[in-house]
């Protein structure tokens, strides 16, 4: 189970130690994250909440290797990513991270199939193997019949499903979801959250999710609050509490 304290859990999938991130805006230094520690186990579903500017997205970017910290380390499955070169980090992201964004960020000129196939183009898989993977991913998100639709021909919920299929198609080590339901109505948001839960429960995916929505965050196994750059362990979700999980 994820923890904001260093408890010597060396088997944690993701280990964050003393993570700091400072931005310079004009002549002013802005400390976004302050000495964060975090352990996330394989199969965890962690939600991050906090007010705007609290550093949620910055933390997600650092965990996903999209940005580098000012100090501190991030290790994933034994690989310390904070000192990797840009090229190595790009390769690492391709192998280990699946991204899901609030605005879906699909390539509009590619079909759903082609969007999902994108991460596989970086692998040595044959065309037929890629097809098999893409069809499987689209089947998991329930969009086999929309494979050849363009994003503009899909609803918001369907676009986000395609984005999730793209995120899981290469079977990454973990998924980073930044406000995955932020642009969806409640019904679609529920469907997307059910899908993410299914990825965790049925497919043993590790998911780290940023959200503003308490209803959405309640679906996570654990919700962590970021306040002024400091991570606070807030609660286990209701489901876990009901299942007898302790804080």
């Amino acid at each position: 189970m994820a923890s904001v304290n260093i408890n010597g859990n060396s088997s944690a999938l993701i280990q964050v130690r003393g993570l700091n991130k400072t931005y310079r805006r004009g002549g002013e230094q802005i400390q976004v994250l302050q000495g964060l520690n975090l352990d996330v186990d394989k199969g965890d579903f962690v939600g991050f909440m906090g007010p705007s500017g609290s550093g949620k997205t910055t933390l997600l970017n650092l965990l996903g290797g999209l940005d580098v910290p000012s100090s501190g380390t991030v290790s994933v499955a034994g690989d310390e990513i904070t000192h990797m070169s840009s090229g190595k980090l790009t390769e690492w992201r391709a192998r280990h991270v699946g991204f899901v964004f609030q605005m879906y960020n699909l390539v509009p000129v590619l079909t759903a199939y082609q969007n999902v196939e994108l991460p596989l183009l970086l692998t040595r898989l044959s065309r037929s193997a890629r097809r098999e993977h893409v069809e499987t991913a689209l089947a998991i998100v329930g969009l086999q019949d929309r494979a050849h639709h363009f994003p503009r021909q899909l609803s918001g919920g369907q676009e986000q499903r395609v984005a999730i299929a793209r995120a899981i198609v290469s079977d990454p080590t973990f998924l980073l979801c930044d406000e995955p339901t932020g642009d969806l109505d409640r019904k679609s948001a529920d469907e997307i959250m059910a899908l993410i839960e299914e990825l965790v429960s049925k497919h043993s995916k590790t998911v780290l999710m940023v959200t503003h929505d308490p209803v959405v965050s309640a679906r996570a196994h654990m919700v962590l609050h970021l306040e002024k750059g400091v991570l606070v362990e807030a609660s286990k979700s209701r489901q876990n509490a009901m299942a007898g999980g302790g804080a």
Partner: protein
Amino acid sequence: MKFRALILSNLFRKKVRLLLTLGSFAVALFLFAFLAVVRDAFNRGGSLAAANRLVTINRVSIIQPIPLSYRDQIARIPGVQRVTHDNWFGGVYQDEKNFFPQFAIDPENQRQVFSELLVADDQWNAFLKDRQGAIVGASTAKRFGWKIGDRIPIKTTYWGGGAWEFIIEGIYHGRTPQDDETQFWFQWDYFEEHAPESQKGLAGWYTVKLDSPDDATRVAKVIDDEFANSPYETKTETESAFAASWVKQFGNIEFLILVIGSVVFFTLLLVTGNTMAISVRERTGELAILKAIGFKDGSVLLFVLAEALAIALGGGILGLGLAMLAIPVLGASLSGMLPSLILSKSILAAGLGFALLVGATSGLLPGIGAMRLRVVDAFRRI
């Protein structure tokens, strides 16, 4: 190949913009091909000039004659193999626009001096036997639909004026496609017979064939020294130098073409560079996503370059294809005014190279911008 769908989809994203950019390339490449063909046509005289031929003209100007008696004196100079003389006729066929070069030639030496212009022996022999006979280049014969045996009136305002009648006895062909096939040759004796008294015994210029090109400088000097301080001083130069000075009479064609070509190049570069920059800027979010999911900086640069090169190649092929269709038509309509316009393989290759250079250059800056794009910065902007 596996990135083909991504590159092609991006290429066809904005079809109108793509068409306009392709059109810009096509027009520029058409213009490039046309200018190159014109330049080539003007310079061809120099490039086709035989290294072992000299041209001797009146020192004052080519329009001033030189005595026929010089021929034997020139022929005696060591190193001279043959000498032939010509005169410009300057007539037109039926209409002013039907202009082509006509020369009164020295039939004894013409074939030996201009051995690259081929006439069948039987036709040449028929020409020699006919005082009114004429040999015409294949291109001019085709232009006017002339065939052997046709009687052709050529009107002239020089040499006493009026229409001179000739009989086509033969058609010559160039040894290479670049050789000039527009000329019209007729017998010197026929010319002398009809020319005004004041012009008799005078030639327009001499063409001197040497034993060896190495003798060119020496023989040219000997010829000019021979006639120095005479009423008809001469100026002798190699055939290529003569051709080059002939072209200069039309103005600095090379410079003009270079200036127009440069303007076209930079305009095209600005147009396509701007198009590519806009295209990349519109896709900041998508490029960021590609980088987020693992596409390397170099791949992103290559995608942008591939798009720019594909546009350049497509537009280039379109423009050069149009040039291939249009230049023969233009050439036919300008026949006689310009040397034959030939769109050679080297011009086509240079055109494609030019297009690809513009494509690569125009895609480079936006591509580098895309390559350097930081994912987090891009996400902050979208």
